[in-house]
């Protein structure tokens, strides 16, 4: 079995057995919502898809894997897959490289920002808490689509039981999966799916503070090219007084952050991220991203980590 086969095998086994690719406790996945008094279920929900919450463990797991990627230890990857069937290796990575507390707090804060922005826009969204599922982007992108059909059926049942009609997603990948892919693999998966950026734009929210700042925009490939959400974030930022600058490759020609291959080829992913990060930093010393994967990859590829901000981190300063 090749290295690619073994790594994908572990991800697939985790998804089939544990309904996710990296094991994170239910408590960690839902802790962002702890003090927000969000209703369970309801007609309109915020759907995190676990993406923001998975970034701290993704960072620690990738840093371990990066050291092994080209070593002879990778020859034992198939053994790792065998062991993983009985012992969850992804949950062990938190002992080898514990996710940083401040990273967990930051990504949780992004989710809280998004919820508060939606509330400000007049959207009272519910949440599925521990019933929410990872949607399986990593598997689908790697051609492993059969386990997704079962996941789509389970999620559909959960959504129906909670009387959900409208789903507000927080990251581009979950937006695409629920809006296009799940509908394709399960025709009865029929919900009104929008990314929070689209919702805030449609609600024409008014800023409370004008931000006098310049920042560079990094479009997500999935949001800009797959879902054609391009003008909405710019409009929200410009209304808030932000001077948006763009690298040569932006909008529909945005340059990938490298994130999609970090679980298989972390060194290559970092090279791509570093190139993109430098392009963005040459436009402005503040850069905004609209996807947690882009945020993690870009900031970790450069010493100028603090210069990268999630869009929600900018918007709360202007709108709340």
């Amino acid at each position: 079995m090749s290295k690619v086969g073994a790594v994908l095998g572990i991800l697939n086994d985790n998804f089939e057995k544990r309904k996710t690719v990296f094991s994170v406790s239910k408590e960690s996945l839902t802790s962002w919502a702890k003090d927000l008094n969000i209703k369970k279920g309801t007609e309109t929900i915020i759907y995190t898809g676990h993406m923001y919450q998975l970034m701290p463990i993704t960072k620690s797991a990738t840093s371990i894997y990066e050291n092994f990627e080209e070593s002879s230890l990778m020859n034992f990857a198939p053994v790792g897959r065998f062991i993983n069937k009985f012992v969850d290796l992804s949950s062990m990575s938190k002992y080898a490289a514990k996710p940083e507390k401040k990273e967990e707090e930051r990504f949780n804060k992004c989710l809280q920002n998004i919820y508060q922005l939606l509330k400000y826009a007049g959207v009272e969204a519910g949440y599925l808490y521990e019933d929410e599922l990872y949607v399986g982007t990593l598997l689908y992108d790697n051609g492993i689509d059969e386990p997704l059909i079962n996941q789509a059926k389970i999620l559909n049942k959960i959504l129906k039981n909670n009387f959900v009609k409208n789903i507000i997603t927080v990251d581009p990948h979950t937006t695409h999966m629920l809006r296009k892919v799940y509908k394709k693999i399960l025709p009865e998966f029929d919900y009104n799916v929008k990314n929070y950026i689209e919702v805030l734009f449609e609600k024409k929210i008014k800023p409370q503070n004008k931000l006098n700042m310049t920042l560079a925009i990094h479009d997500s490939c999935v949001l800009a090219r797959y879902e054609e959400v391009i003008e909405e974030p710019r409009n929200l930022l410009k209304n808030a007084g932000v001077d948006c600058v763009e690298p040569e490759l932006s909008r529909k020609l945005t340059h990938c952050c490298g994130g999609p291959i970090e679980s298989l080829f972390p060194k290559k992913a970092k090279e791509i991220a570093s190139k993109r990060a430098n392009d963005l930093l040459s436009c402005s010393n503040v850069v905004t991203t609209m996807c947690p994967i882009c945020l993690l990859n870009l900031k970790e590829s450069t010493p100028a980590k603090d210069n990268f901000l999630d869009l929600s981190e900018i918007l709360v300063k202007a709108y709340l």
Partner: protein
Amino acid sequence: MIKVNSGLIDKIKIDENFNASACFNCGTCSALCPVGFDILPRKLFRYVLLGDEEKILESTDQIFSCLLCRMCEEQCPHEVNITENIRLIRSYLAKSKLGV
């Protein structure tokens, strides 16, 4: 000499969106590819259409290194579903060759 698997295309083309035959080999797709491969996608699609399974297997790492970012599709003059084609080739490899 190429060992041809004439049934390969049927195993990969499990979705109506697979349209590797629409590629006319112009290479425009590779111009802005962030990964910078020389094999993807035009050569790869030829191997699939020819049934050259060995070449596809040799390219496994490159096939799984594609970001599926669709930059190539923005350039493609012939509306080839490049990323979906690659995803379906991955699907074949994962199921039939990699033991996933």
